[in-house]
C-alpha cells in the first residue's frame, strides 16, 4: 500500500533557526555579545537572567564538525598528535580539536568567554577543563548525578542540582558584572518547558501509521529545542510543526510513502552516514522512534505501567514557575530526566520496550557508538531484553563523528541481512 507523502513545510524554518543560531555565535564577538559554552543541553535558560548571550553548545558543535569528514579528521588528528587516543570521546575530540586548530564548519572556532557546564558523563569535566586551561576563561561546574533510580530521580538528586544552579546565578553575576533578572529567568524557563513539551507531543504522534516524520528529518527537527529552547521563536516553530504533524496524521500523510515496516534506531547515528536511513526506505522501512531523539529535546515520564509518555505538567512545583527557586528546580528536573535513559540500564530498557510496543515498531537497530560511552550505555543489555521479548534486532559498530570507524560495506551487509530477517526485500 502506498501512502500519500508531502514535503514538510516546517523544514525550512528549522534550518533557518539553526542558521541564525550559528550566525549569532560567529558574530557575537564583533557585536559585543558574551559567548557561553557547555553541553548541548546546558541550562541555557539560567544564563538568560543576565541578558543576551550566544551559546556554543558542545555536542551540536561537534556533530556539525562531524558532518564534514575532512574537518572532523583534522580535528581528531590534532588531538591524537597531542596524545589522546582514537577511542576517546568523539565529541570531545571534535570540539577541542576544533579549538586547537581554530577551525569550525563556518569559519574560525568561536572563542567562548565563559564555561557553564552540567557534567553528565565521566569525560565532560575533562573536556571543559581542557577548554578552560587552553583559553584561560572562567568555568562553573554543575553535575547531573546518576542516582541509580529508574523512572524518576530522587528528590535529593534534583535538589542537589538546583542548589548548584542557585550558586551558578551568583557566579554569573560575579563573572559578567551584570545584575541578574529573575523575570528573564522565569520567562526563559517557561519557554524552555513549552519547547520541550511540544517536541514530546510531536514525538508521540510518531505512533501513527504511517509515521508522519522520518528519523533522518527528526535529527534536524530536535535541534532547536536543544540549543535554544528558551527562544520564543523556537516555541512558535514547534507549535507550527506540531500542527503540521497533526495534520499529516489526520490525513494519513506519510514520511515514507511505501512504509510497510517500522523500526527503532538508537542511539546517536553516524552523522557522516545518514544515507543509511534512505537505504532502509528502499525496503519500505521507516525509522519511527528513537529514545535519543525523543528524550534529548523532550520532557517525558516513565509510567509505572511501563509506558513512556510526554510529561504534561512538571512534577512537584507550580507551573509556570513563580520564583527563582521553582525555576531552578524545574531546570534541574528536566536536565536529569533528559539523560536518565542514557545513564540507567533499567530505564533504557523500559523506554525501548515502550517505543517498540507503543510506537508500533517491528524491529530495533542499535548503534554501538565507539565515540560515546554515554549513548552506548545499556545498549547491549537493552538489545538482549528486546530479543528475549521476541523483537528482531541488529547492531552495527561505528562512531558518530569519526568516519575512520565507518565501514560502509559491512553496515550495508548487516542492514540487508536485518531486512531479510524482517521478511523484507527491496521494493
Amino acid at each position, binding site marked *: 500500500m502506498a501512502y500519500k507523502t508531502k514535503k514538510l513545510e516546517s523544514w525550512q524554518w528549522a534550518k533557518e533557526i539553526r542558521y541564525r543560531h550559528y550566525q549569532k555565535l560567529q558574530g557575537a564577538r564583533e557585536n559585543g555579545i558574551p559567548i557561553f559554552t557547555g553541553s548541548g543541553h546546558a541550562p541555557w535558560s539560567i544564563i538568560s537572567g543576565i541578558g543576551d548571550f550566544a551559546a556554543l553548545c558542545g555536542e551540536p558543535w561537534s556533530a556539525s564538525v562531524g558532518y564534514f569528514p575532512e574537518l572532523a579528521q583534522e580535528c581528531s588528528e590534532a588531538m591524537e598528535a597531542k596524545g589522546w587516543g582514537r577511542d*576517546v570521546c568523539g565529541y570531545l575530540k571534535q570540539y577541542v580539536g576544533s579549538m586547537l586548530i581554530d577551525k569550525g564548519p563556518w569559519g574560525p572556532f568561536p572563542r567562548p568567554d565563559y564555561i557553564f557546564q552540567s*557534567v553528565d558523563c*565521566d569525560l565532560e569535566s575533562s573536556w571543559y577543563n581542557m577548554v578552560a586551561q587552553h583559553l584561560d576563561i572562567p568555568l562553573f*561546574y554543575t*553535575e547531573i548525578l546518576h542516582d541509580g533510580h529508574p523512572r524518576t530521580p530522587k528528590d535529593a538528586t534534583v535538589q*542537589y542540582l538546583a542548589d548548584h544552579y542557585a550558586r551558578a546565578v551568583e557566579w554569573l553575576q560575579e563573572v559578567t558584572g551584570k545584575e541578574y533578572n529573575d523575570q528573564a529567568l522565569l520567562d526563559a524557563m517557561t519557554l524552555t518547558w513549552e519547547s520541550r513539551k511540544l517536541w514530546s507531543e510531536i514525538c508521540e504522534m510518531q505512533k501513527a501509521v504511517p509515521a508522519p516524520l522520518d528519523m533522518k528529518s527528526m535529527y534536524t527537527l530536535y535541534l532547536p529545542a536543544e540549543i535554544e529552547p528558551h527562544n520564543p521563536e523556537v516555541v512558535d516553530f514547534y507549535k507550527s510543526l506540531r500542527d503540521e504533524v497533526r495534520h499529516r496524521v489526520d490525513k494519513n500523510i506519510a514520511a515514507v510513502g511505501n512504509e510497510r515496516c517500522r523500526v527503532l534506531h538508537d542511539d546517536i547515528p553516524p552523522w557522516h552516514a545518514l544515507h543509511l536511513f534512505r537505504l532502509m526506505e528502499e525496503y519500505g522501512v521507516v525509522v519511527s522512534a528513537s529514545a535519543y531523539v525523543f528524550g534529548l529535546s523532550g520532557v517525558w515520564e516513565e509510567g509505572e505501567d511501563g509506558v513512556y509518555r510526554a510529561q504534561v505538567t512538571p512534577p512537584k512545583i507550580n507551573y509556570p514557575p513563580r520564583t527563582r527557586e521553582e525555576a531552578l528546580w524545574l531546570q534541574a528536573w528536566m536536565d536529569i530526566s533528559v539523560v536518565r535513559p542514557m545513564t540507567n540500564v*533499567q530505564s533504557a530498557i523500559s523506554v525501548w520496550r515502550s517505543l517498540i510496543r507503543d510506537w508500533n515498531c517491528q524491529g530495533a537497530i542499535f548503534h*554501538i557508538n565507539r565515540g560515546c560511552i554515554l549513548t552506548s550505555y545499556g545498549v547491549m543489555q537493552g538489545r*538482549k531484553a528486546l530479543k528475549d521479548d521476541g523483537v528482531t534486532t541488529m547492531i552495527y559498530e561505528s562512531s558518530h563523528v569519526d568516519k575512520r570507524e565507518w565501514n560502509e560495506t559491512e553496515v550495508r551487509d548487516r542492514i540487508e541481512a536485518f531486512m531479510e530477517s524482517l521478511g523484507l526485500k527491496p521494493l
Partner: protein
Amino acid sequence: MIEAFQDIINGRHDYARSWKERTGGKVAGCFCTYVPEEMLAAAGVLPVRVLGSLRPQELAEAHIPTMYCPYSRDCLAEGLSGTYDYLDGVVMAKACMHLQQAYECWVLDVPTGYYHFITMPWILEDPESRAYFLSELLDFKETLEAWTGVPLTDEALDRGIDLYNSHRRLMHRLYELRRPDPPLVSGTEAAAIVLSSMLCDKAEHNELLAAAIERAPGRPDPPNPAPRLMIAGGENYDLELPLLVESLGANVVIEEQCMGSRYFWNEVSEEGDRLGAIADRYLTRPPCPTKTNQQPRYQHILDLVRDYGVQGVLLVQQKFCSPHAVDIPDLTRFLADHGIPSYFFELDVTLARGQLRTRTEAFLETLDLELV
C-alpha cells in the same frame, strides 16, 4: 614474605565461603574503592572487591559493548558464570560509567539478594557535594541495617572506622619500607598486600600485615638496588605487571592507582559525627580521574614522586578506560614539565608480556642514560 597474601588472592572465593561458614556473616561484593567499606564491616559484613578472571571470556559480550573497559566486562562475566554465587549482596559507589554498567547488568542478571547504589558526586569540593554524599551514606546505612538486622550505632561505626584506620596506618608503615634505596618491600609484594586486603577480613589482614612489617627489615632477600619506578593510572589486579617490570631490573617503589595507594591513603577522622567523617574521608581521598578537579591528585602524584625518590613513571590504563584515557596525556605533560620521564602502557584482560618487556627495557635504558 607474601605467600599468605598471595594465598588469599588465589583462593579468594574459598576464603570468602569459609569466612561465611566460620562467622555466619554475610559477604558483599564491592565494585569500586569509593564504597565505604567501614560501614559494611560495622554491620558485620565482609566486603570483597569484585574482580575478573584475567582470562578471555565471552559471557559479558551480550551485556556490555566491547568498547567498555575489559575489567568491567570481566567482572560481570565472573558474576554471570556463577563464580560469585556466595555473595549475599553487591554495592556500587558511582565513579565511572564502565563499572556502573557492569553493576547495573549484574543487578538485572545475577541474583544476589541485596543491591545498593551509592551516588558519589563528580564534584568533590562544593558544600552541596558533602551534603548530598552524606544523604547517600544515610540511605546506605538504612538499607544496610534492614538487610543485616544490625543497628549501625555510633559504637558499631566506631568499630568499623577503627578497624579500617588501623589497617590504613599499617599500610602506611608498610609503604615507609618502600622509601629506602633499595626498598625493603618490592612493588610486587606491595601490590599483593594491597590487593589481598580488598579480599579478606581486615582484622585478619592486619595481623598478617603487622607480622610482615616486623619481618621486613631483617629479611634475607630484599630487593636489589635498581631504578625506582612509580606505576600510576587505572585499575590493575594482575600481579604479573609489577613482577615483570621488576624482573627487568627496576623497583616499583610506589603506585597511584585505586588498587594501590588510593585505596588506603587517608583515614576517617575519629572525632565528631561518624557518617560525616566517613563522607569527608571519601571526598578528600586521592581522587580518580572521573572527578572534576584533578589538581589535588596531580600534586599528590608529585609528592609521591618526591617522597619515594621516583625516577620514572609507568602510566597504565585499561583498554577503553575513558577517564584515564583522557587524563593520561595531560598527566604525561605534567610529569614532563616537572622533569619526570614516563611511558604509557595499555592493559587488557591478559597482559601483553612481550610488548611490556620490550618497552620497559627500552624505558629503563633511557632512564639509565638520564641518570648517567
